[in-house]
């Protein structure tokens, strides 16, 4: 078990490293060098030279990379071009905002979708199930910014005017409602789908049948026999959805003007603020990988075969494997239900 996790962990680190290489390489492709970008219009040859030395742009790329990487490891993400401020400091409050937003979304989405999912599994092929499945399908299809705009049109100033549609520092808590709701609606469907699929898978399994044939009370069957076997895959999908949030916030923050990492990224792009872009992309990729890792570990831990004797898991994927298509269709955001996507 621990070995498996260790391996996964190591692999996560490797991936992160690879990502860092990609990000660094990508930013090398920029027209003009950092100095040019920083000074922008008031760039005189002298000042350029000075700055180049200061940023040691004269060294070979490899050296620059290693220095940059060393910086990263010490939490030094470089200095922003547009405002000559350490990126790490600059990112603090945006990161906070984004986390608040993601947190809210997750808090709303997870329990609700679990309930809906389980319920439609029990009410399989009845009205509720069909409505739920159609609803999730619809929500899963539409890009989150579209959902957001529709929400604004309906509830925002344009429409019912219940909630503000733009964030402002003076604004009250109500300004978080629409963005959080948007994200929640975006992450929920796969969880619902997965919960339903897994529950059905489990409820149809022979061991649940056996439990019923033993004459056990339905509640016992559900909670003792069915639930534990459903956790694994579902937990994974939840984790994956949270991972998706890391990237999903961008469009939503952009839409609602929330000063989070997504907004910072967009501004960084607008100002060609390379260190900022690098930092945010790495940050997001980092979160993404980390949570995927988490999902992985959960998947392992939820499977006694692995927990007890460290042999490779086979069970957790199964629910996903079977209903793949069905969930796939629902999994718009991060292809989440295909837990396999990130499991190796």
């Amino acid at each position, binding site marked *: 078990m621990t070995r498996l996790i260790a391996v996964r962990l190591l692999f996560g680190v490797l991936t992160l490293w690879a990502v860092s290489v990609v990000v660094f390489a990508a930013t090398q492709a920029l027209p003009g060098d950092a100095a040019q970008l920083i000074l922008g219009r008031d760039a005189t040859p002298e000042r350029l030279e000075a700055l180049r030395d200061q940023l040691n742009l004269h060294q070979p790329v490899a050296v620059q990379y290693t220095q940059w990487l060393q910086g990263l490891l010490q939490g030094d993400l470089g200095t922003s071009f547009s405002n000559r401020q350490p990126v790490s400091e600059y990112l603090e409050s945006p990161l906070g905002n984004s986390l608040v937003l993601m947190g809210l979304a997750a808090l709303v989405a997870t329990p609700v979708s679990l309930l809906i999912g389980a319920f439609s599994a029990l009410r399989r092929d009845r009205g509720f199930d069909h409505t739920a499945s159609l609803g999730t399908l619809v929500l899963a299809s539409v890009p989150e910014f579209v959902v957001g705009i529709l929400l604004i049109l309906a509830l925002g100033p344009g429409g019912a005017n219940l909630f503000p549609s733009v964030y402002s520092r003076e604004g009250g808590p109500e300004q978080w409602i629409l963005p959080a709701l948007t994200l929640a609606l975006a992450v929920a469907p796969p969880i619902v789908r997965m919960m339903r699929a897994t529950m059905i898978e489990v409820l149809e399994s022979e*061991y649940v049948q056996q439990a019923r044939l033993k004459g056990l009370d339905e509640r016992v069957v559900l909670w003792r026999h069915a639930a534990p076997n459903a956790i694994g895959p579902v937990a994974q999908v939840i984790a994956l959805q949270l991972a998706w949030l890391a990237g999903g916030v961008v469009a939503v923050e952009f839409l609602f003007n929330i000063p989070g990492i997504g907004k910072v990224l967009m501004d960084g792009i607008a100002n060609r603020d390379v260190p900022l872009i690098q930092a945010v992309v790495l940050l997001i990729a980092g979160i993404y990988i980390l949570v995927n890792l988490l999902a992985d570990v959960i998947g392992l831990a939820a499977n*006694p075969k692995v927990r007890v004797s460290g042999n490779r898991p086979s069970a957790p994927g199964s629910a996903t494997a079977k209903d793949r298509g069905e969930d796939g269709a629902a999994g718009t955001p991060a292809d989440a239900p295909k837990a396999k996507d990130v499991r190796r």
Partner: protein
Amino acid sequence: MTRNEHTVLEVDDLTVIGRPSAVEIISDVSITVRRGEILGLVGESGSGKTTLGLSLLAHCKRATEIVRGHVEVGGKDLASLSEQQVRQLRGRAVAYIPQSPASALNPALRLRTQLGEALHDDTLPRAKVLDRVREVLREVALPDDDRFLNRYPHQLSGGQQQRVAIAMAFVGRPELIVLDEPTTGLDVTTQAHVLETIRRMTREYGTAGVYISHDMAVVADLADEIAVMYRGELVERGRTDAVLAEPGHEYTRRLLSAVPLLRTEGHEEAEEPEEAPLLRISGLAAGYGRTQVLEGIDVSVSRGECVALLGESGSGKTTLSRSVAGLHHQFTGEALFDGEPLARSSYRRTAEQRRRVQYVFQNPYEALNPRKRVRDQILGPYRHLMGRPQDPDAVVAEALERAALPAAYADRFPEQLSGGERQRVCIARAVATKPDLMVCDEITSALDVSVQAEIVTLLRNLQDEGMALLFVTHNIALVSNIAQRVAVLNKGRIVEYGPVGRVMSEPRHEYTRALIADTPDFQPSFATAE
């Protein structure tokens, strides 16, 4: 059948239909079982025997439902009771032993929990429950210590899992116990033990049993009464010996005659194999990665001869046959075909060698490309190995004909064929290239007995036409009927190798003896009468 106080189970005109098609899955079935007796419920796949078995606990799978008749267990009609009441009876009045405990035991729960809850009697203190559990475990010859109780199902062997399932059924001291093919997937030795346990338990507890199986041999061995199901109907019922002596229904007759009999004598002496056999394997050792599964294997097959590789699951027999076919590459030692060495990988063998050695797979449902018509399934290899035929249709027709299939089948897709027919197509595909040696890997094990018999006859004919067979199987009875010589594989080594007659009549290795002993002996009087 008159009902008396001994009767534990009485089923009248039970009918179960499928939704929404509303077709009857079982129609008007009536059976009774007395205390301490076992009813053998025999039928092939699709006969509805499992549905019947489940309905004895008033359980219906999704999209099925009991529409007629009643199921009285200990005088209470389950069919008419409420969910709640039925639940009370389950486990106490009637218990169920599933086909594959591997999937019927909850992977996420410890044995302690799963066994304990089977009693589902809240009045009992935990300690009492535990004592009972330990008691039953001892009775099914399993350890009863905490270490064992704390295990998860996947930590047990197949045999152990099945015993746990049995124990689970008996914990509640039920009056009736339903066993759904509890020994399929177990090798004969284990099967023998499990059957023994079942027999003993039912006797000790005075429980009535309904033993569902497709294996006439086992049933004949175990049951006091036999009921034969065919297409959802009960076609014959009676005391075991009576049914075996003179089966009333045609289907029963067929079933009985299809069962391969373990012939321990009467084999004509196999003539000494000529010096230049078609296939000679010497000093072969094979494995996967670090684990060795075969060692020091010496086998040879002569032209027109059928050599059987007999072994239980995990004995390495499939690995051996695949090495011969060039599908398993990790082997050392010599494999000569017609004097020429066979390369490890089929890709390094000459087209001629590949043509002359053909392989038929165990599971016909997986051995055919579902997207190709029979015709292309057969022509594919032919084209690849022998080039374009001038008259493809003729090739296909001939191949099918040799596999005893009408030429019309050429245009069908696999999904339009039954299991037996599929296996025939596989054989047709193999014989199309006119091979000299055909490797048959458990080719009958996935089929119903009746079909099985047909395939065996087919093989005999092919052999008579001069084809050599390497026949891999776990079924000693089959071996005694088809092979001239047999190699008994055990744990990757050949423990006995010789003419069938000799091996069957005077087995030298105790493993072989055990095999012969554990195989349920079965002599339908009418069969011998013929």
